[in-house]
């Protein structure tokens, strides 16, 4: 289920946001993430599961290592949201301009 809502929910947790920031630097294993963050390895695994279901990260084998990395699919959801961000703002702007029209003008 790679929906925008799932992405929002996934990023609604500070630890998961920290994991995302860590993965920006490159793929990491569960162990590496757990070592870098103040949470247990099982907790990291649970967070990664949520992130994976949201489409933000994916799991893959890199050589002999099992690692997680950011997935463009999740970013696409956020990009779509950003599109909506400006659409909504400009809609309001256009409404304001129309409202500013003098009568008959």
């Amino acid at each position, binding site marked *: 289920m790679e929906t925008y809502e799932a*992405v*929002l929910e996934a*990023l*609604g947790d500070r630890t998961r*946001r920290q994991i*995302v*920031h860590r993965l*920006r630097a490159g793929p990491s294993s569960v162990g590496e993430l757990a070592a870098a963050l103040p949470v247990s390895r099982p907790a990291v695994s649970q967070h990664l599961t949520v992130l994976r279901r949201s489409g933000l990260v994916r799991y893959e084998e890199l050589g002999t290592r099992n690692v997680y990395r*950011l997935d*463009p699919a999740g*970013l*696409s959801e*956020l*990009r779509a*949201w*950003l*599109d909506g*961000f*400006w*659409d*909504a*703002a*400009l*809609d*309001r*702007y*256009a*409404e*304001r*301009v*129309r409202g*500013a*029209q003098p009568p008959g*003008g």
Partner: protein
Amino acid sequence: MPAHLTSVEPVRKSVTVPAAPQRAFELFTAHIQEWWPLATHSVGGSQAVGVAFGEGVGAAITEILADGTTSVWGTITDWEPPHRVAFTWHAGTPEAEATRVEVTFTAAGPASTVVRLVHSGWERRPDGAIVRDGYQAGWDPVVASFVAAAGTAG
């Protein structure tokens, strides 16, 4: 990979409004508080009470919170009324991670203006370097935007 590269292309929007460029420009900038959807588009969410658009290069776009504090969203880099305004955009993030927004106002008739908005700069990183994996770029500002929206999501 193409999918990665396309994901960092600028966001482009346009809208045609029934006003001359001068009026369209003034409403977009000086009168931003009259239309900006603060409830959903702010750092403070329900605590946001206003937004002010400065005038001239170096002036800021600032969100005003209920407790009197402010949050700077960006700084004006180009000020060419009534044709063009550009500003950095770092709502909720460090200024070093700012993206860039440019808005142009083009007359399309006696009382009609095409307003084009381009939000770019996703390749920018804290160190200013261009990233190799394009899709990772822009993550911070987008996440920050999410955080801003999440404040009112409930």
